[in-house]
């Protein structure tokens, strides 16, 4: 589809230059011009309609295909440098054992036409852990793979659970549906008086099983445990 602007300019230039010599050719130019304007009128309607259609398809697609994996709602979306940039997206969904999780980010970037991968900045996740406890996970950047509902966080992570666990990890791969988390980099977990450090860590079955591997170091400070135990009951 040649660009409408060039045709118009071409017709005008031909017409302008030979106006005196061949007025009888006016009819041909007139036909050309009217065909052009018809085409412009057509495009004026078609182009916006196509734009709207694409947006509807995209938003619909991400909403529909989220299925149990959670629906994305966006505060605003813009297109920058070939990727869709969403500000403060929020993802809500349910894990395999039907417990709600929520993930928000300050900004999310998805390459247009790229596969199901969204780069996230300023991540906060609220994920169910063991029993009826919840973990809030904070990290500066990571990649959310919508295809298999995985969040790979490449920066330092702060994790805190309602049961009082405080954890610092250097990276983490989180499988949201299975609510499992693993990290192949050093991790430090602390609670009340017990500190566990190791070079790799995995929390499986929603935190029912914790596996620390490679150079496990546990420090228990009985006095602090007694303090918090007394404080608790």
């Amino acid at each position: 589809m040649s660009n409408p602007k060039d045709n118009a300019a071409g017709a005008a230039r031909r017409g302008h230059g030979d106006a005196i010599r061949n007025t009888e050719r006016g009819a041909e130019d007139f036909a050309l011009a009217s065909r052009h304007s018809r085409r412009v009128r057509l495009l004026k309607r078609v182009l916006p309609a196509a734009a709207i259609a694409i947006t509807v398809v995209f938003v619909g697609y991400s909403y529909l295909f989220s299925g149990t994996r959670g629906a994305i709602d966006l505060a605003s979306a813009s297109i920058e440098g070939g990727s869709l940039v969403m500000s403060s997206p929020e993802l809500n969904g349910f894990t395999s054992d039907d417990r709600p999780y929520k993930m928000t980010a300050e900004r999310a970037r998805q390459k247009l036409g790229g596969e199901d991968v969204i780069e996230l900045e300023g991540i906060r996740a609220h994920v169910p852990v063991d029993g009826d406890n919840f973990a809030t996970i904070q990290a500066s950047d990571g990649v959310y793979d919508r295809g298999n509902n995985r969040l790979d966080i490449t920066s330092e992570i702060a994790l805190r659970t309602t049961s009082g666990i405080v954890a610092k990890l250097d990276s983490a791969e989180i499988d949201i549906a299975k609510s499992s988390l693993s990290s192949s980099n050093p991790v430090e977990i602390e609670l009340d008086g017990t500190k566990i450090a190791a070079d790799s860590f995995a929390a499986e079955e929603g935190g029912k099983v914790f596996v620390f591997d490679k150079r496990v170091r546990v420090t228990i400070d009985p006095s602090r445990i007694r303090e918090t135990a007394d404080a608790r009951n």
Partner: protein
Amino acid sequence: QDSQSRLTGLQLSGDKPIQIESERLEVREEDNVAVFSGNVSVVQGPTLLKAGRMKVYYLQDGGSAATGSANIDRLEVDGNVYVKSENQVATGDSATFDMKTEVLVLSGKEVVLSEGENVIVGCRLTVQMKNGQAELDGCKDTKAGGRVKMLLTPGSQNRQ
């Protein structure tokens, strides 16, 4: 018969920090157990315990093993156990430690308790960690006829 000796060193002093190291730690929330494996070492003050594996069983009273808020019921240690305190060393195949009664039981084909050059060999060493009171029982079914073998090196008492 068995021999009584004071094992003053082998005491778990109440609030000194305990440092545990191992290659791997698996905390199984539902079974209320944490399993340390791969040259496990436990240090508290002068007391050191080394073993191949140590299982920490938590009380069922609701606290969670993973968060450490549950209190410990008992420890089960195996994979050639080595226990050392200021002046005594005891070795055996496996050991259990009950947190409530604070009793450590070290057992195995050959439990060796040594203090300096004095060596006592038996099959079961029971230590009251509260006061360090230790009791070594002989091996019922071995050719030693259930007697404890004791090797006393003359003059070792005053050389300490």
